[in-house]
């Protein structure tokens, strides 16, 4: 019996969050006396593939089809089903990210399996197969019990500390015969936001709100983000006013992020905004209004004018990096 994990890579390099998924699968496998089989689709570098052993995978199955370097959910789901049949897998793990969320539900349907989307905990097998996830945009948590024999889980990235260990995985080729309809979606154009850290996976985020007064002041945010190696985000009014691109909008009707550090500058902290960021490990609020509701949700706060505080903070980060090389 094997726990199956869908592994993602970008241009051959395995994503850090996929190691998290393998580690998560490994924990479950140990619970159930099973092994972990990682499934890699498309052309990942072999050194990368071998590295999966260090996070708990005993075997890696790879499908060498170059078409799979891009997301083709029906093809991915098909490959996972073939792998599941081969490895006698009843538990399938993917990530709760754009790709995983397009694939896991298909696998769940094919296996008539219960799916927990956005797992935050390991399964608790005392009362069944119970996994914790966030609901109501992070205002509460739900404990979901999977009743079916087969089980599919998408793991919320950045939920568990990553611990590299020792271990090697055997690598095996997997043959899957695809149909034309598995590649029914044609990619016409890709626009990557160049040179910046992707917001969805960023560990550090600096975000600006209306308190920044105008788009012309965003250089201060970008400077701090650059110094920290952070992604940039913004509140809804900022996106609605077209000061920043809409993909930066985080909040209830924008993106949901769970970075390790979220620095909110000039954002008052309305409930709808908090819904998008309340999964952050640490929140720092910089606002000149001491009554701003965001301070109630923050770990650290600075009451001051963003225009003055930002350069000081950027300088402090820079100084810190130089003295801690």
């Amino acid at each position, binding site marked *: 019996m094997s726990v199956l994990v869908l592994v993602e890579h970008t241009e051959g390099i395995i994503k850090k969050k996929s190691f998290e998924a393998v580690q998560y699968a490994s924990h479950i496998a140990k619970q159930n006396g099973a092994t972990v089989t990682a499934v890699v689709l498309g052309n990942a570098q072999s050194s990368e593939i071998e590295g999966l052993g260090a996070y708990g995978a005993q075997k890696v199955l790879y499908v060498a089809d170059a078409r799979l370097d891009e997301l083709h959910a029906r093809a991915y789901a098909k490959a996972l089903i073939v792998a599941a049949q081969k490895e006698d897998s009843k538990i399938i793990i993917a990530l709760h990210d754009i790709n995983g969320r397009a694939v896991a539900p298909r696998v769940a349907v094919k296996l*008539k399996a219960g799916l927990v989307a956005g797992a935050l905990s390991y399964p608790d097998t005392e009362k069944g197969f119970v996994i914790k996830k*966030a609901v109501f945009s992070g205002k509460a948590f739900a404990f979901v019990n999977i009743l079916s024999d087969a089980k599919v889980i998408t793991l919320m990235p950045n939920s568990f500390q990553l611990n590299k260990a020792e271990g090697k995985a055997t690598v095996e080729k997997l043959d899957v015969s695809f149909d034309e309809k598995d590649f029914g979606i044609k990619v016409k154009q890709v626009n990557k936001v160049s040179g910046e850290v992707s917001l969805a996976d960023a560990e550090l985020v600096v975000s600006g709100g209306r308190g920044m007064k105008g788009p012309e002041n965003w250089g201060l945010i970008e400077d701090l983000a650059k110094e920290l190696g952070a992604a940039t985000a913004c509140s809804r009014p900022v996106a609605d006013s077209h000061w920043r691109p809409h993909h930066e909008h985080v909040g209830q009707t924008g993106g949901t992020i769970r970075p390790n550090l979220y620095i909110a500058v000039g954002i008052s902290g309305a409930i709808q905004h908090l819904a998008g960021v309340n999964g952050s490990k640490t929140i720092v609020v910089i606002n000149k209004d001491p009554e701003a509701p965001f301070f109630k949700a923050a770990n650290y706060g600075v009451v001051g004018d963003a225009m003055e505080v930002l350069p000081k903070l950027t300088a402090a980060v820079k100084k810190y990096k130089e003295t801690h090389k």
Partner: protein
Amino acid sequence: MKILVCISQVPDTSTKIILKDNNTAISSDGVTYIINPYDEWYALIRALELKETGVATDVHLITVGKADVEPIIRKGLALGGDEAIRIDAAPNDAYETANYIAEYAKSVGYDLILCGKESIDYNNGTTGVMIAELLDVDYIGFATSIQIEGNIATVNREIEGGEETDTCNLPVVIACQKGVAEARIPNMRGIMAARTRPLKVVTPTAVAPVASILSYEMPPAKAGIKLVDPDNMDELVELLHSEAKVI
């Protein structure tokens, strides 16, 4: 071209979540229910736009729920749509919901199925994908714009670190987010028409549950905030490193 828009009922965005029945349920006392914003502002409005520009002939709204969801269905009809369907069921999870919707969709035959990227109550985003799988069609999620020409859908969607333009043949299921359309306020004509537009109730074929929520929990109370003097950013950096351990 027939479009099916999947809408679901959720508590409004400012609702305070209160647990009841020994934490096994969410209290509905004093809760205002709305259409899931992603379903309403993006999926439904885009469908209506496609009808207004002559691309679509019919726009149907579908919800899975008991009679208490009918007010929000009528809110949807107040924005537009030719008819609404309520699948009479109280599903435990997305698998059931998807099965009910797919069963109905199959019986009618839709060219395009639109839904929101996820619902703001359970934040799963799985129903649309499951419907696509059950109907054996493609699914495009996190769509930021949708164009339909003839039998081809051209969709911009969010990807990690950017955006991608995809094309695909109809029929297809597309999950919508910001950019697909602009929210509208229902006008008087629509509000008055909502009463007269048909709202069918359909009994689905039962599906065995595969998952259910056992209980809920509230997040732990936040420890008090530590304020740092704006002139002392070195201290903040130190705290973030040694105490919070995030840099």
